[in-house]
């Protein structure tokens, strides 16, 4: 009974407040701001700083805590996504199901469609563009904007910062455009 309860997905009114509490907790514990994409910069600074001024800083001092946090996120993904995995398909709305079916998605099980995210799609042009091109844009865009869905979307908005609101509106508009206009041409068939 309890086992079944642990595997059930959490509703929005549990998930959202807990996200907020993580952000509040980091601030209360060590004056740290929740923001995952800063780690992409710290990784560059730690491993491939090159001659680039943007990566010439004391990454241990600025970002070691965040890299350790990121390691925790990977471990948390294992706990939540493997140990406590939900066996049922994600309960999206019927309208969403119909809309994603038009992309050619047939198997709605798992956290991501296996049809899209497997090693073989990397060998197709569409799949390569989706995985490598999409990843590149995420890294370039978050660095340019100075934050992502956590840094701007949670921390920045909660701190009532106007730049974060602009960034959030911008990435939601572009995300909607990409999902509707680009994704149909990138889903491997």
């Amino acid at each position, binding site marked *: 009974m309890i086992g079944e309860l642990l595997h059930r*997905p959490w509703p929005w*009114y549990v998930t*959202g*407040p807990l*996200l*907020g509490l*993580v*952000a*509040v907790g*980091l601030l209360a*514990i060590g004056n740290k701001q*929740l923001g995952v994409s800063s780690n*992409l*910069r710290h*990784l*560059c600074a730690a491993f491939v700083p090159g001659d680039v*001024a*943007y990566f010439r800083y004391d990454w241990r001092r600025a970002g*070691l805590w965040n890299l350790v*946090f990121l390691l*925790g*996120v990977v471990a*948390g*993904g*294992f706990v*939540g*996504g*493997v140990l406590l995995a939900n066996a049922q398909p*994600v309960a999206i709305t019927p309208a*969403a199901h119909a*809309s994603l079916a038009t992309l050619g998605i047939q198997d*709605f099980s798992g956290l*991501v469609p296996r049809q899209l*995210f497997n090693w073989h799609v990397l060998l197709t042009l569409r799949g390569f563009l989706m*995985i*490598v*091109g*999409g*990843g590149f*844009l*995420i*890294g*370039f*865009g*978050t660095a*340019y*904007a*100075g934050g992502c869905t956590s840094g701007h979307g*949670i921390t920045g*908005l909660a701190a009532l910062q106007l730049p974060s609101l*602009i960034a*959030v509106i*911008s*990435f939601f508009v*572009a995300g909607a*455009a*990409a*999902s509707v206009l*680009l*994704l149909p041409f990138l889903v491997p068939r």
Partner: protein
Amino acid sequence: MSATPTFAASTSRYRERLLEVYLVMGVLFGIVLTKGELVSWYRIEEALRFKGPYIYLVIASAFAVAAPGFALLKRRRARLTGEPIAIPPKVMGRGVRYVAGGALFGLGWGIVGACPGPLFALVGAGVGVMAVVCLAAVAGTWTYGYLRPRLPH
């Protein structure tokens, strides 16, 4: 080892204890991302196609907790470091970086169906190919750093 640690030794031990706390916070965040289905491609694409309110309700309720929390914490001191709590304001400038950077990130987000936190959580959840997305994202950040002096901000 001396029985009375020097100041430097005690602060470095303090910092190590802090790292454990951040590791635990990261694990907690990773569990929330997966159990809350924020790592789910289906949930993200549902939101970006405006076919369901789930993600919007999550963001609104996170804000409802974090905004008053931040306001209460301002001008207090952090529990473990004793530092005064302050959130440095983001520099607006001409705002180009927030519009253009946000848009480029949004395009990648819509294409992959995951943002940076979930990308790493999905690697832990066993979606191995997401590690390639993470590496491509590091390459994207590096390219931004390289081009930064020539980009409008």
